[in-house]
């Protein structure tokens, strides 16, 4: 898994060197349209319907933002591996795939303002001792409440000693676990969230760490009745500032268009409405 990440990073830097920035007028987005990539396998953020069409929170939001920007948009599905290198290679112009803003990602691409933010935490079996973790309603921001967050993490560290935790590879969640829990717990990285869901179901891991929105969606599925979110939720800092549109660094003009559209969609409540529709909770950034 590490090798895959390295390869992708290598390919990305190669693409950066080879692909020179394109110059163009402000209006080129209106004429050529904007191609947006999503994963198409991360329900309910973005997923594929049986007929092959894409659907989900980010598909609805993309259509809304494009209407506000008065540009023609096409949304395409792209494997999570290679989603950033393909952006820099110019295969499409934007990423909307539940992708959090992080410092590492900001080295290679730029981000618009945040359109969704929510806490991340543990998912466990209801009959596991971990299900009795305290503070399940508590929320900590790693940046704004460093001391409280640190105390909550230390409590979790004691509870998770010797446990195995599943997490999706190359995500802010994996970074968080590796930063705070690597020395006390075994961290197992998976290619997709659905794979660690399965291993949790089969009791091959004691817990999984993921966005609460994804955990809620998973645990609403048949077969997951006996699983629940446990312990406090965390956000900010190494977990990323929130989910935003990823763009090539050269496309400052497109970032301006997206920023304005997102601000408008937040102001008139569209993002809140879409979030309630798909997640049953409000993920619009506070």
């Amino acid at each position, binding site marked *: 898994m590490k090798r895959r990440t390295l390869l992708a990073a290598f390919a990305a830097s190669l*693409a950066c060197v080879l692909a020179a920035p*394109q110059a163009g007028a402000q209006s080129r987005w209106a004429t050529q349209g904007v191609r947006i990539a999503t994963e198409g396998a*991360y329900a309910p953020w973005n997923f594929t319907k049986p007929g092959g069409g894409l659907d989900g929170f980010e598909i609805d939001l993309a259509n809304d933002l494009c209407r506000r920007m008065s540009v023609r948009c096409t949304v395409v599905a792209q*494997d999570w591996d*290679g989603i950033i290198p393909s952006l820099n*290679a*110019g*295969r499409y112009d934007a990423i909307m795939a539940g992708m959090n803003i992080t410092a590492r990602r900001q080295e290679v691409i730029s981000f618009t303002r945040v359109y969704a933010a929510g806490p991340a935490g543990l998912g466990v079996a209801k009959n596991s001792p971990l299900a009795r973790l305290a503070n399940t309603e508590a929320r900590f921001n790693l940046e704004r409440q460093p001391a409280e967050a640190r105390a909550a993490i230390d409590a979790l560290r004691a509870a998770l000693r010797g446990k195995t935790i599943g997490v999706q590879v190359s995500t802010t969640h994996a970074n968080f676990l590796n930063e705070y829990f690597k020395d006390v717990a075994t961290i197992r990285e998976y290619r997709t969230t659905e794979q660690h869901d399965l291993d949790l179901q089969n009791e091959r891991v004691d817990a999984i760490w993921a966005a609460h929105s994804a955990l809620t969606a998973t645990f609403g599925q048949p077969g997951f009745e006996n699983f629940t979110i446990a312990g406090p939720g965390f956000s900010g800092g190494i977990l990323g500032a929130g989910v935003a549109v990823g763009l090539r660094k050269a496309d400052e003009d497109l970032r301006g268009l997206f920023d304005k559209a997102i601000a408008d969609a937040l102001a008139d409540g569209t993002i809140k409405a879409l979030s309630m529709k798909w997640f049953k909770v409000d993920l619009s950034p506070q």
Partner: protein
Amino acid sequence: MVPFLELMGFGPRGWGAAMLAAAAMTLAVSVAGFLLGGVVGSLIAWAKIAGKRLVRVLADGYTTVLRGVPDLLVIYLFFFGGSAMVTAINRDWFGGQGFVPVPAFLVGMLAVGIVNGAYQAEVFRGGYLAVPKGEIEAARAFAMTRAKMFRRIVAPQVARFALPGLGNCWQLCLKESALISVTGLLELLRQAQIGAGSTRQPFEFYLAACVLYLAITTVSGWGFAFAERRTRRGVARA
């Protein structure tokens, strides 16, 4: 939870058509890659057997490097490097604007074919070395032209010796095609992942993908068995 048969069926909640289309894509990219690998492999084998010193060294380098690096790296190189190169050439030499995508299918075929060619080259070379020297000398004594000697003496026997190895190469091809999903090509494994992530019923999708892969390998296995029998006509079983 949608029942398995409905999920893999052709109704409004059925993914049957999508899975079959993806299996057809897997088959198409594997066959195209295998055929390209055949062409590359025979040229490399020829270079290894009959080439001058420099050509032999280059051919040896080709098979050593491409069998030695991860297939995924070759795919990344073609996919990202290829598009960047084509775009740069278009811009600098033809004054073109914007990004020129290399089609995912072409990238898949090239990556599979070029890696598989390295394996097939070794199989062909082994097949050629197994042809008894005496028969080649006899053909020369009959004053056969090189073309006729190749057609009547070398090719039929290399085919016989190489076929079992080629069967293995074909299966490598089929499995390497699953790596092409990083390019966004909608082949069988990628479709199964999409379905699993979208419906959260992974077992059904991976089981269906498994059955479809096995169907492809089983049927192609019969094909190779048939071809082996044909090339062995007139040869006593050991």
